[in-house]
């Protein structure tokens, strides 16, 4: 499965108004420690541009290290794409991003998030309806899951075990990459050469099969990999759904294996590939992050859009807001995507032309949307009668690889899927504070919805996308439409406009091999620095990438602190020499 998305617009006029002071389900104080812009001292040790999960993570780590840190957020709430909004009284929508898995466990510990309300609620089941009215329903009981899979294919019951074991071994091998800065293979720095050698020896020491499986997943298609294990279309459809999330590939495309692997790399309480629903949604999570950052001393300024990074003699020295206010710091960190970081916040003329070219070529091509519903009751799935416990996890509308691939076919030619893949979550079944008793909120991640539409645009097609999604749901849940109290559509264009993610790409840049690891976002610039001294990048457009993972924010903070320590050391050395 897979979960990070975005989309959203305040244009509907129903955006959570900050003025009513009600900005989370428990009525606790919103994040409002705005610095005084009139203050004469607008100088910080570090300024982070963007209060999404990576900006907050980065700012929290910097503040924890003792740096006086300011986090600037354009909107009236923190969270970026990870927000929860009360778009109808009593109904809380995870407007964009809607579940947690890839969040690095060390961030939870380092930033002491449990002290600030971190609460990842278990999603105890996964439900995959089928077009013939049957379903696949997996839960927490291992034996029952085997029986459920055997109901569809006796062969697949133990094939599923073998698949999980093989994939887990790959995940165990790959996982350390998520927690480390990629080595700079273009550098002669001995430290980098050691890092490269360490990486090489790690792969050399892997079991041959594990290494081969890793390469098959990293370079091949999800379909090829899954076909090696499974007979059942529903099993393959369910598993392959994770191979397309947020990315313009189909399960038959080379490269979908990488997306599949990526989405399995998450963990929840030690279980690979497991997802959780944070209390109050991912907006609840980013509020926890914000509180942690504040507890370490970071200041967070809302409604403070940054116009540009101020540079002097090739170094960043501060930022200027759209309203002209300037804040100064020797360290400026962009949590925005690579296009905004390199082409908008600074003057591209200050950058090497090959970097500018690479960033201009960087593929965003957002391909996902969100349609969120307020429901009068839980949908009814005929084969399960009045049961509703199947909704306590993801409901996966992707009943076969062919279904997914056909959905992709539409996108290839510039249109949204006639029968889209949907990843649905009725989060109020897990967190009762998301909706009034008996009512529900349903988050639907929609794919494919390409940013660039052929001979039309998203302002024109928005409602039609909503209708398509609703019709798809109606076909699986007869009577669904009668339950709908409110529908909120967030197209890729809405994602771009509201969250600022270029072309609405939920990962701040496609998950394609040429844009990962050593090359994210550009060869030679994968270590969170930029050619401008003191200017850093920490968004999902850097390694290891998107999803609510926090690793870019954390790893970037590590680099900033390392550079700071080096600068201090050389300063000390200079002083010593001069003395």
């Amino acid at each position, binding site marked *: 499965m897979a979960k990070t998305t975005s989309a959203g617009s305040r244009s509907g006029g129903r955006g959570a108004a900050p003025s009513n002071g009600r900005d989370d389900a428990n009525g606790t104080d919103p994040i409002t420690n705005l610095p005084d812009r009139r203050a004469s001292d607008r100088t910080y040790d570090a300024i982070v541009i963007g209060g999404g999960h990576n900006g907050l993570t980065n700012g929290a780590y910097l503040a924890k290290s003792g740096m006086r840190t300011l986090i600037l957020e354009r909107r009236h709430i923190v969270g970026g794409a990870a927000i929860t909004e009360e778009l109808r009284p009593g109904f809380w929508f995870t407007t964009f991003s809607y579940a947690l898995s890839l969040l690095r466990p060390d961030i939870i510990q380092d930033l002491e998030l*449990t002290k600030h309300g971190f609460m990842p609620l278990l999603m105890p089941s996964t439900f995959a309806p089928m077009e013939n009215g049957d379903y696949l329903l997996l839960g927490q009981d291992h034996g029952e899951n085997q029986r459920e899979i055997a109901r569809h294919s006796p062969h697949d019951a133990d094939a599923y075990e073998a698949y999980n074991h093989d994939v887990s071994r790959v995940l165990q091998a790959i996982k350390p990459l998520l927690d480390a800065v990629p080595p700079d293979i273009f550098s002669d720095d001995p430290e980098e050469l050691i890092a490269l050698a360490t990486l090489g020896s790690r792969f050399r020491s892997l079991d041959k099969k594990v290494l081969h499986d890793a390469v098959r997943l990293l370079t091949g298609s999800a379909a090829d990999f899954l076909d090696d294990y499974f007979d059942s279309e529903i099993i393959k459809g369910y598993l392959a759904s994770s191979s397309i999330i947020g990315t313009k590939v189909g399960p038959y495309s080379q490269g979908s294996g990488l997306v599949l692997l990526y989405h399995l790399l998450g963990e929840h309480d030690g279980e690979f590939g497991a997802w959780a629903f944070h209390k109050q949604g991912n907006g609840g999570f980013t509020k926890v992050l914000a509180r942690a950052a504040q507890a370490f001393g970071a200041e967070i300024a809302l409604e403070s859009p940054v116009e540009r990074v101020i540079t002097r003699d090739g170094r960043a020295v501060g930022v200027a807001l759209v309203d002209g206010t300037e804040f100064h710091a020797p360290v400026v960190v962009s949590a925005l995507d690579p296009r905004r970081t390199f082409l908008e916040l600074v003057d591209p003329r200050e950058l090497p032309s090959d970097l500018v070219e690479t960033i201009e070529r960087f593929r965003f091509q957002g391909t996902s949307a969100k349609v969120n519903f307020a429901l009068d009751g839980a949908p009814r799935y005929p084969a399960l009668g009045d049961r509703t416990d199947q909704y306590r996890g993801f409901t996966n509308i992707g009943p076969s690889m062919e279904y997914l691939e056909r959905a992709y076919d539409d996108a290839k030619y510039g249109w949204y899927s006639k029968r889209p893949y949907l990843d649905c979550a009725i989060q109020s079944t897990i967190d009762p504070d998301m909706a009034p008793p008996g009512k529900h909120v349903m988050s639907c991640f929609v794919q494919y919805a390409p940013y660039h539409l052929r001979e039309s645009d998203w302002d024109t097609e928005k409602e039609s996308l909503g209708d398509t999604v609703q019709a798809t749901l109606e076909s699986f849940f007869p009577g669904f439409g009668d339950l709908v109290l409110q529908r909120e559509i967030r197209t890729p264009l809405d994602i771009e406009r509201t969250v600022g993610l270029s072309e609405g790409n939920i990962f701040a840049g496609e998950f394609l091999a040429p844009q990962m690891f050593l090359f994210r976002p550009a060869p030679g610039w994968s270590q969170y620095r930029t050619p401008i001294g003191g200017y850093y990048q920490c968004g999902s457009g850097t390694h290891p990438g998107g999803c609510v993972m926090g690793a870019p924010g954390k790893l970037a903070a590590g680099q900033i602190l390392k550079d700071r320590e080096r600068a201090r050391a050389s300063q000390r050395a200079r002083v010593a020499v001069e003395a």
Partner: protein
Amino acid sequence: MIRTTPFHDRTSAANATGLWEHWSGYLVAQRYQLSEKFEYFAIRNSAGLFDSSPLFKYRIHGPDAEHFLAGVLARDIRTCPVGHGQYTAWLDDRGFVIEDGVIFRNGSDDFLLTSAEPNLAYFDALIGRHRVVIDDVSEDSAVLAVQGPKAREILGCLAPEVVGLPYFGLATATIAGAPVTVSRTGYTGDLGYEIWVPAEQALAVWDAVTEAAEGRGVIPIGMVALYMARIEAGLLLLDVDFSSSRYAWTDAHRSTLIELGLGWMVRDLTIDDRSFIGRAALEAELRDKTSRWKLTGLVLDWRDYDRHFDQAGLIPPKDHTPIQDEYYVYDDGGAQIGYATSLMYSPMLQRHIALARVPLDRTRPGSVVKLELPVNHRYEYFDAAVTRLPLYNPDRRTA
């Protein structure tokens, strides 16, 4: 034949697993759903319903009831006003703990004491010339615990008296036509209440509570979820974290009040003029500093934990299932200095936690000890920080 509780018609209908445990001769659900962790989150995020009926319940009444209890219970019952309860313990004359339980004061000379094991003969034998009668009323009432952040709003719909009830407060009310007593007590370390209802009217109360809770994520919870919550809350379990001194074979299996970390029950000893069983021994223990260890919380170092398993080629297990068994505690030099009795991975704290006995010189929060755990069929020694109990303690528990 195993007995069923007054709620059995409902608990058996709700138990989708077919898994039951025997508790004091009664059938109680181990878990109702395929995921006990989901039940656990009901306690922390909405509310869980737990059938506590098998508790032993003794009505202790008569003109000398207070005086009697002041002499047999370690905590001063005289400080417990009518309409309140107290968590208490009773000791033998060597200061070792026999058992713990909650006592409620329904009138100036009318008390209800709960315990996990039968204690009637023990207390009866102590009555002597006191004008006190002890009735075993264990089967008269059923007990439904409603535990979790939504407990107040749900019960408030049924019995407004509950809304203002203080921690360990007691109120009488009527729910579904049944006369009930509601106490703000529980075994989860969360906001919670227990409803004491005449056994024959139990089902009506269950139905009323579930109806009031409809749509709020409230579910019945089994033993495993309860154990998870109680370990986080640092609540001790008889025959797991300590044994009754009455039935222990050696003093190694006995614990004093101080050693169990329950010394706070008698912290006013200087102004407490009671003569109660175990007092002299307690005073001697405090004076001579003879406590062998103290029960405290341990929080495992997460990085060290992961490292042990990573190095062994294993994925570090983070299993929430409570292990209520012994693991040994060592110092850096490899000498055994204590032992743990309950261990689990806490989903709320995102760490492995334990209840453990450590020597007095290690009780300072942050002291590091080594916990012995198996990795690849060999024992390894994991860093763990001594941490004050409760390990998880939301404000709402007492607010």
